[in-house]
């Protein structure tokens, strides 16, 4: 959780803390219990909003039947998972899915260097196979922003030192071979990252997602076609072993805006990176 989230949660939590501390003034006996129940329910909703607003928000908009117009000629549906545009009686429904390839390409700490190379070599082939199996329009976006080289290097060196400390403890404590090998592998992986930076490669923060558009003669037809397309994408990109999660709510709105203007600085972009781990 970042500082802003902590601040929002702390002040909202304060409301509930005060609520519980004046519970006697809110009612005695059964009434007091009812008041406590309401306060607990409210706080639970706040916690859900903090960690899983993408579940709660579409439920509310679907229940109330609320739609949004993010710009002229565009509409966000009640489920908050598609952007609809109508042109000459044809409906175009656009949806987004996360497709973070980092787990495929850069999961260094989990794989041997040889496996890593092998996976990178196979990537173009898997990509071509995936594209050939798709017969509808889609866009694969990689949004990246350069990070502070020195800061990342320092962080990696800190991580390496920690792992080295773990290794010396494991050796002194006569830990089994598997544990020692595992720690050594982690150290090698971190060292590989440090070497990459030393070799001139820039550390990046990235956001990867797929955008696809479906057509239909009605809004429902377009949305149904979009759901089918997203399922197809999930199968097609199965080779990359990525989780393709449908983007909903505020993230959908953010990605819609990305089609016309991108964040212009790291500070502006950083706010979006906590959304995709």
């Amino acid at each position, binding site marked *: 959780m970042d500082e802003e989230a902590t601040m929002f949660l702390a002040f909202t939590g304060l409301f509930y803390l005060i609520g519980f501390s004046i519970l006697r003034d809110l009612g005695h006996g059964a009434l007091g219990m009812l008041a406590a129940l309401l306060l607990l329910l409210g706080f639970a909703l706040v916690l859900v909003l903090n960690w899983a607003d993408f579940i709660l928000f579409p439920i509310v908009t679907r229940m109330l039947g609320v739609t949004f117009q993010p710009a002229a000629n565009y509409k966000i549906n009640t489920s908050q998972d598609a952007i609809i545009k109508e042109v000459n009686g044809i409906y175009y429904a656009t949806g987004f899915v996360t497709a973070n390839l980092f787990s495929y390409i850069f999961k260094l700490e989990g794989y041997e260097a040889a496996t890593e190379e092998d996976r990178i*070599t196979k990537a173009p*082939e898997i990509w071509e196979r995936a594209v050939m199996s798709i017969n509808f329009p*889609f866009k694969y*976006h990689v949004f990246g922003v350069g990070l502070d080289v020195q800061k990342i290097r320092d962080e990696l060196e800190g991580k390496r030192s920690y792992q080295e400390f773990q290794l010396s403890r494991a050796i002194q404590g006569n830990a089994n071979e598997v544990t020692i090998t595992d720690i050594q592998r982690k150290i090698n992986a971190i060292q590989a990252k440090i070497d990459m930076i030393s070799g001139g*490669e820039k550390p990046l923060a990235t956001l990867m997602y797929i955008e696809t558009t479906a057509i239909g003669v009605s809004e429902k037809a377009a949305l149904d076609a979009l759901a089918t397309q997203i399922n197809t994408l999930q199968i097609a990109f199965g080779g990359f072993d990525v989780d393709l999660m449908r983007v909903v709510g505020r993230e959908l709105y953010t990605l819609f805006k990305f089609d*016309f203007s991108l964040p212009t600085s790291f500070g502006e972009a950083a706010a979006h990176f906590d959304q995709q781990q």
Partner: protein
Amino acid sequence: MQTKFLVFIAFLAIAFVLLAVAASLPSKGFFIVLKFIVLILAIFSSILAFASRFYTYLIVPLIQQHSRHIVLSNENAYWLSTTNDAILSKDGQDFIASIIISIPLYTSSTEMSPEEKNAFAKQVGRLVSTTGYPMRVTAQLYVMNKDLYIQQLREKISLMENQEATLTQSNAPSKEINKVHGALAMWKKMLDNISKETSFEMSTFAMISARGSKEYEALNIVHQKAMEIMSGISSTLGISPSIVVGNDILKFIEPEFLMPYSTVSEQITKNIQEEVI
């Protein structure tokens, strides 16, 4: 202060006031009902306060508009710059100019050795990190525009049909009628075939944005960034990227340009016919 903090403070203040009112109301008779209504409103207000962290852009219009269809913006999402090579949008008082850079990549993994595949995958990785600026690289699969050709075929068919009708009415020799009939069948079959198979194109492009207090300021900055990125791409991949201009920009941002109108209408008609059959 950012709007979301103001909204947060406002709702939280309302929540505290309502909680105080609820606590001060006597716990008897009609006041019990009133007390709980005020308490529920206080909790609801605290939830709204917390939700303002993510949803200020919705909460304010929701309160102002009292409608199920909430208009966040009535303006177009963007407009084309006078230089014809960038799109502009507004964010508060600032202008954001965005440029799309076409990256002509025509390599296939089937022609590559494992070493080449590895090198290519790494090159693509480096492509994203050519600059420290926030940048988005996209691979886009879209339907080839056969509108013009389909239109020509339709015109030809309509011409042939007229000719056939004229010949039949004027009792022309059957040889001539058969000739026109044959040509008509050929063009119809061609139209049928061309719209049966959807042809796809794949393009890679990068997008970059810059902010300025004036349109020309944003445009100047984004042009500078684009030049820097283009030289980076050129040296990384050994290709000549170019800035996308005019209507070609629409192909990368508007959903209807992913699927040209004639192709789409042919496809929909065919789908409906198939469903009827």
